[in-house]
């Protein structure tokens, strides 16, 4: 199979990359009608599969689960998840031929084998849905021409998809129709109905394309979301220990700090996050992040280039073929880092202290969010897409670090994201070596404001605020956040 994106002429590449339209709620007035009475069969009953299915059924749709024979015979967790909730469960052979809509919610790595097994069984004119476009775009999977191919991608973990739905709300969602597979022109109607069924229409829906979703999703997760949070966490912890800060304190500051700091990001964007600092601290964080942006920009660009050219997916698929040798090795190495092995100390750190004592992370987050956003937009991705895949998801990933550090983050995200995260981390650390030599405990571990009189230069402050607030990620963010004001606070501290 050839990389789909690379088979397209440049004009069409740009065309598909540039799809991003924030949808008006009036577009969802038809509710779930396009899928009403149709038979929906979900393949896979993990966190996304189960929770999306529960929502769709609660929205009056007819949902059942197709699992592999072994999963049923051995009564695996996926089988238990589905049967405990009184869903009909059957093998591919039993259920797929009856389906009007087949929803593939298995891990990326299994897509090729799942689709190869499922496609011949699908009835003429049925619809196939993905929640990530990797298989179609990067692996170039060709779907039978009578089949409609859509994507509905909730931008939250499965448990949140369920929790928000039951509150009467939803999570922000990307939807798309694959232009090569929409023979009956029903793709958008069904994608919208599916989105309504999961509650996504309450929280803001972005009309996207398979190409735009994949190229931005990969970029976001490798760089700001997982890669940089991992690198920043490890470097910060090591620096504090090197400088004599108590290891338990350092571990707690890093584990929870990133969550507290990015919670501010969620509410007020990058400028909202920096507004949590005193004026002198803000100036310092701004200067640090400018420096970090200069140092890291080439790395962000390299990641984007490799994603665009297909180099990234090619390398990763080689590792799949090699039994995940690299992935497993890097995963083990991450587990051995001092940060990972030092339990958070039994110390109280109040909310503001996470900002005042952890300026370095504020700087990392600003640099990472803006770089990822800028690099994506330069590559032809629309600002709306770039926002979702950078700023929007950062607090969600930070929450997984607060739960159980990097181990948890890398467990929750997909293997694809995890693989990209390690690639970034390995390249980023040496890149930052000289910078880290200049770092002292005033920006990580101790209160930056201590012993300072709080005065700043007027003009400088005005200029900094201006730069922060007028960045494109802030402008598009203000618009998109309006649609998600009711998203609940996630807090572990």
């Amino acid at each position, binding site marked *: 199979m050839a990389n789909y994106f690379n088979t397209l002429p440049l004009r069409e590449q740009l065309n598909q990359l540039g799809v991003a339209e924030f949808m008006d709620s009036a577009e969802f007035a038809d509710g779930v009608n396009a899928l009403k009475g149709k038979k929906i069969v979900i393949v896979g009953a993990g966190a996304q599969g189960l929770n999306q299915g529960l929502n769709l059924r609660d929205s009056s749709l007819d949902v059942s689960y197709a699992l592999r024979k072994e999963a049923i015979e051995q009564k695996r967790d996926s089988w238990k998840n589905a049967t405990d909730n009184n869903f009909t469960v059957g093998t591919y052979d039993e259920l797929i031929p009856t389906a009007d809509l087949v929803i593939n919610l298995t891990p990326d790595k299994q897509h090729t084998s799942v689709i190869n097994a499922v496609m011949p069984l699908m009835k003429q004119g049925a619809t196939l849905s993905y929640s990530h476009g990797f298989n179609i775009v990067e692996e170039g999977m060709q779907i039978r021409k009578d089949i409609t191919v859509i994507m509905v991608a909730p931008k939250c973990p499965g448990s949140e998809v369920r929790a928000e739905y039951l509150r009467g709300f939803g999570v922000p969602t990307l939807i798309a129709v694959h232009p090569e597979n929409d023979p009956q022109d029903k793709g958008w109607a069904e994608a919208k109905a599916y989105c309504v069924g999961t509650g996504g229409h309450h929280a803001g829906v972005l009309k996207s394309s398979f190409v735009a979703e994949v190229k931005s999703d990969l970029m976001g997760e490798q760089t700001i979301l997982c890669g940089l949070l991992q690198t920043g966490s490890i470097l910060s912890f090591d620096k504090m220990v090197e400088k004599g800060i108590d290891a338990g304190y350092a571990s707690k500051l890093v584990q929870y700090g990133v969550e507290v700091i990015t919670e501010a990001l969620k509410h007020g964007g990058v400028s909202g996050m920096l507004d949590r600092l005193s004026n002198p601290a803000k100036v310092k964080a701004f200067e640090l992040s400018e420096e970090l942006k200069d140092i890291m920009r080439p790395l962000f660009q390299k990641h984007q280039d490799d994603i665009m050219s297909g180099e990234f997916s090619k390398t990763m698929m080689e590792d799949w073929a090699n039994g995940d040798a690299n992935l497993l090795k890097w995963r083990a190495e991450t587990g051995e880092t001092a940060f990972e092995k030092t339990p958070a100390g039994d110390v109280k750190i109040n909310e503001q202290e996470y900002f005042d004592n952890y300026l370095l992370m504020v700087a990392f987050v600003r640099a990472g969010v803006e770089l990822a956003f800028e690099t994506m937009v330069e590559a032809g991705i629309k600002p709306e897409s770039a926002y979702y895949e950078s700023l929007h998801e950062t607090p969600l990933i930070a929450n997984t670090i607060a739960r159980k550090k990097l181990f948890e983050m890398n467990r929750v995200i997909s293997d694809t994201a995890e693989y990209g995260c390690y690639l970034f981390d390995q390249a980023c650390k040496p890149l930052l070596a000289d910078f880290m030599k200049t770092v002292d405990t005033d920006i990580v571990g101790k209160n930056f404001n201590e012993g300072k009189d709080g005065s700043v230069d007027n003009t400088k402050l005005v200029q900094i605020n201006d730069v922060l607030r007028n960045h494109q990620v802030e402008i598009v963010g203000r618009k998109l956040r309006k649609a998600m004001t009711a998203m609940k606070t996630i807090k*572990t501290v």
Partner: protein
Amino acid sequence: MTEPVVHIDNLTIQYPNNLVLNSLDWSIQQGENYIIGGTSGSGKTTIAKAIAGLIFTDNTVKVTFDDSKSLPAKVTYISNWYQFTNLEGDRNFYYQQRYNHHQGHDTLTVKAELEHFAKKENLDFSDIQQRVQDFGFEDVQSSQLIELSSGEHKKLQLVRGLWEKPQLLIIDEPYTGLDKNSRVVLNNWLDELVQEGVQLILITNDTLLPQSINRYAHLVDGKIEIVDSQADFAKDKKRQQKELPAFLRAIPETNFDTVAELNNIFIRYGDKVVLKDVSWKINVGEKWLLQGPNGSGKSTLLSLINGDHPQAYGHNLSLFGNKRGSGESIWDIKQKIGIISPEIHWYFDQNATVWHTIASGFYDSIGWFIDVKFQEKTQIEELLEFFDLMDVKNKNLHTLPLGKQRLALLARTIIKNPPLLVLDEPCQGLDNDQTKYFNDVVDELAHYGKTLIYVGHYVSQLPSCIEHKIVLEKGEVKAIENILETVA
């Protein structure tokens, strides 16, 4: 003379725009066991927390322990609001999560929680084995915390606190959500602790108390006043019954004869059977009382009726004339139901104002997200007026006294004038007068054609419109009775 156990000298606690305790002086001598009662919002919880050292008091509160006692020299405060976290330290639960936790082991089991506590406090599990049994709490030990009902959470909270046998034990609303038998067990246990040297401060307006209670106090204008008996406690101003808004006097349209019909329902979590062969038919307009001890399956049964339970599919269960899973969404179901329960209150959006809380009733959401139409706004205003909530409509729900919060949630429950009202222990935390007022409103609503399911433990605290009763025990229907005479 021995030193007082608690000595408070000139304690003032002030929140923005609200002077709660005003130069308060109080001494509690050895052997004195107090009830603190009085009006809601008078500062009962604040004084309790001040004594327990949970708020800053600037050294105006002095607690002296008795070295000759073998009991731990500490004050334990059991709050009126339970709080637990999942294994990852997260506190983001939603009220239906009990039925949605699936295979995940998100929270500790009761047993693990108790063992963890024993280790931390250096306690011996055998000391409470009998208590756990007396409380009817034996069977839930393998349950996860998330699976517990509100009454069971209360018991867990009490077991932990009483187990410690602190020299001074303060319990804020000890009886909230407890069934009848458990109250007796609790009172006996408290009396035994007093014999062993524990001193008690209980905050309650309940009248069934431990025998060892010998002092009564209430708070007036931020100061403590000692009184002779509970009869002397200040009472909240009697609420004036207003005329029910016109939109609630309309009889809701019903194009079905039965509200719910359950036939031989079993609900299981793994090996644990929560409901066993339950059958129940509710006709339009009937007023039902649902009773049963804590943990008997009441909330699970209700969750089947209000669309919250994923296992409702695939059973012989009809709601509003339609078989479950025949093309209705949970929002179609919820649209016909007004519901209030301890769990909904517990998990309600922390940031919702009173106005938003009521508005969310139109959409059955927890918190409010959607623009409200003009007619709906008028109804909200009418209910704010009816429940005397106009002056607090822009305040956050959670900043109000419990009684007001309940009224706001009741307003949310009835705002869309639904054909079915499900009131699961709606009067938890209200005193007798507030309960009477609340139930009078329910009676009046019931008069206008609504179907009612009411959960309450105490016969003296029920609306008088009740005409049928279903009793659950260990997940089984123990009795279905008609009540011809009024129960009140």
